[in-house]
């Protein structure tokens, strides 16, 4: 199947000067990132802070220009479009297809606008509806996300965090998009609310035929919602695999420590941890040479310090590690019962 969106060799470098005549500092937020997402797929991008996952999302939606590489969108029934080559005006029609959901439900809604105007704005900008039709479409999408019609006249501060996130989702969906990029869309929510929103996202995906790029640091959520997972570290893609394969048998040592660090809500599984997690993420400005992960890797050899591994196929997985074939890494699926059944109290 052809990809709905593909990212090829994208790099993004931020450079800034301290003062007018200060030295120029550069930060490589993305290094040669390549990935693609198939129609109907949920692709998760995971990693710790500073790994470039948010920059990747913002680069795809053209919130900022990329330094190198290209992002290609293949709308169904249309020739492929190279988004990175488009100017602002040419990009505008494609903004209907590619939408974003933000992390912080408090800052992503304009406090001075009523919910109706917030959700209606994309329709107004693209001149897709007006008057009665506009109202019906806004009310319809709000009902889909569970916001009652009579709440449309309220201001965002009248809503709880979970409700605001639903409004943000409605705003993304009101244009009938093809691809939705959710940047930590459930991270700021309490667990019970997070579950509501995750279920909602799943149902909306089926109903609207959406494709998701789900950016998250929470592997539990990712395992639940994603079909495929891309693991990023210091701006590099280190592993790209179907969810089950990745959790069953990670191929990159970094994926292994991410899985191992994940706290599992079951005290019976607490003893299994073999303290392999060590070191901290290096500062982006002082990126190690060779494999970006070698400073924390327990398998690192001289080769890793000098030669940067390329992303290559091992089984179902794409991985950037010199020893991917030989390493026996531990997955996260234990033997403990995976589903919970409680006697009704």
């Amino acid at each position, binding site marked *: 199947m052809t990809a709905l969106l593909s990212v090829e060799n994208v790099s993004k470098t931020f450079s800034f000067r301290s003062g007018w005549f200060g030295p120029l500092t550069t930060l490589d937020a993305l290094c040669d990132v390549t990935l693609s997402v198939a129609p109907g797929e949920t692709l998760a991008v995971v990693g710790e802070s500073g790994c470039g996952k948010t920059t990747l999302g913002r680069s795809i939606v053209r919130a900022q220009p990329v330094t190198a590489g290209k992002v290609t969108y293949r709308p169904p029934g249309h020739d492929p479009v190279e988004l990175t080559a488009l100017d602002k005006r040419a990009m505008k029609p494609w903004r209907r297809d590619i939408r974003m959901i933000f992390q912080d439900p408090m800052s992503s809604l304009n406090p001075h606008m009523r919910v109706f105007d917030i959700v209606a704005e994309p329709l107004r900008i693209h001149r897709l509806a007006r008057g009665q039709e506009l109202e019906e479409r806004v009310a319809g999408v709000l009902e889909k996300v569970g916001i009652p019609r009579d709440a449309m006249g309220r201001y965002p501060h009248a809503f709880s965090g979970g409700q605001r996130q639903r409004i943000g989702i409605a705003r993304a969906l009101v244009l009938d998009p093809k691809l939705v990029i959710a940047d930590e869309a459930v991270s700021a929510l309490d*667990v*019970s609310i997070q579950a509501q929103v995750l279920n909602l996202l799943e149902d909306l995906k089926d109903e609207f035929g959406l494709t998701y790029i789900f950016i998250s640091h929470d592997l539990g959520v990712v395992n*639940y919602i994603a079909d495929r997972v891309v693991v990023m570290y210091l701006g590099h893609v280190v592993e790209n695999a179907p969810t089950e394969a990745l959790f069953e048998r990670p191929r990159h040592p970094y994926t292994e420590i991410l899985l*191992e660090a994940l706290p599992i809500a079951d005290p019976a599984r607490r003893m299994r941890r073999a303290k392999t*997690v060590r070191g901290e993420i290096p500062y982006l400005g002082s990126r190690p040479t060779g494999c970006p992960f070698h400073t924390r890797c327990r398998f690192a050899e001289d080769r890793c310090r000098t030669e940067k591994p390329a992303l290559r196929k091992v089984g179902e997985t794409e991985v950037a590690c010199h020893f991917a074939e030989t390493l026996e890494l531990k997955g996260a699926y234990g033997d403990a019962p995976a589903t*919970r059944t409680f006697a009704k*109290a």
Partner: protein
Amino acid sequence: MPPTPMADKPLLKIEDVEIAFSSPDEADIVAVRQVDLSLYPGKTLCLVGESGCGKSVTARAVLRLNDQNSLIRCGRIRFSPSDGETVDIAALKPDSLAMRKIRGNQISMIFQEPMSSLSPVHTVGDQIDEMIMLHEGLKPKDARERTVALLDQVGVPGPRERANSYPFQLSGGLRQRAMIAMALACKPNLLIADEPTTALDVTTQAQILDLLKELQEEYGMAMLFITHDLGVVAEIADEVAVMYLGDVVEQGNVFDVFRAPSHPYTQALMRSIPTIARKKERQRLSPIKGTVPSAKDRPEGCAFTSRCPYAFEPCAGMMPGRTSVSGNHVARCHLLTENARKAEVPA
């Protein structure tokens, strides 16, 4: 793991505490009601719950750190260090000499954001030195040696050099380690940790949790650990207390509570976290309906009534009592007493 021997004297015993916040133009808001908790020396008690459940208010009350407009309306907070007399912290004035002696001397606290409790204009080393000099009366030189040893112990690489760094020069993980070193400087009997790993990345979180467990073993201190993450609870707790909107709805040994959660809220909470499972075993999440009501709208009875799938007639009007499930595992739910009664009838 053997159940906590009940014969042991608890280090901290919170009895029937109710905390209210007053505001100039509204009625008082009761943040926490009828809280009973016991913490034994060398053990970890986790307070877990969603935002606004009162877990932080409860923990801060132990150090009397809540805002000026808060009031411990009733109840006792008995603190019994092995080397001292039992004091009722609830009866002390927040800024009294006795309270100041307890704070930072016998009870230390670490926070979610270390930057808020470390001074930005002093080096990390100077701040720890000061604590040590204050509590142990050491000379500056000896204090610095202790500081370096402490920083080394909490896993700060190059402790002697790092002692001369300012907090903003350290990464989030190192800052949290420095704050832990500071909290340990006076060898506290009790460490209160308020979401200490929430702002950290998962790998750093795992390291900090491991570190806290090691240090607890070495220092033999008790820990009151506040978190919203059931995964972290499962990782670190001996005992757990689940809070919802100001009530402790269920408490007990962590293994018992996770194996057989007995309060509908605990059950629902556990069903709403995604499990790490293969696709074919994965279940759709069953979230709790609705949102947490405001404390003003809390019913007289069980706080969870409005969202509980099993709520029945006595729930809203009457606060359910503590019902023992097994050992020290108790839950506050009318269903438990109802079932018990039903079970008795046929027999």
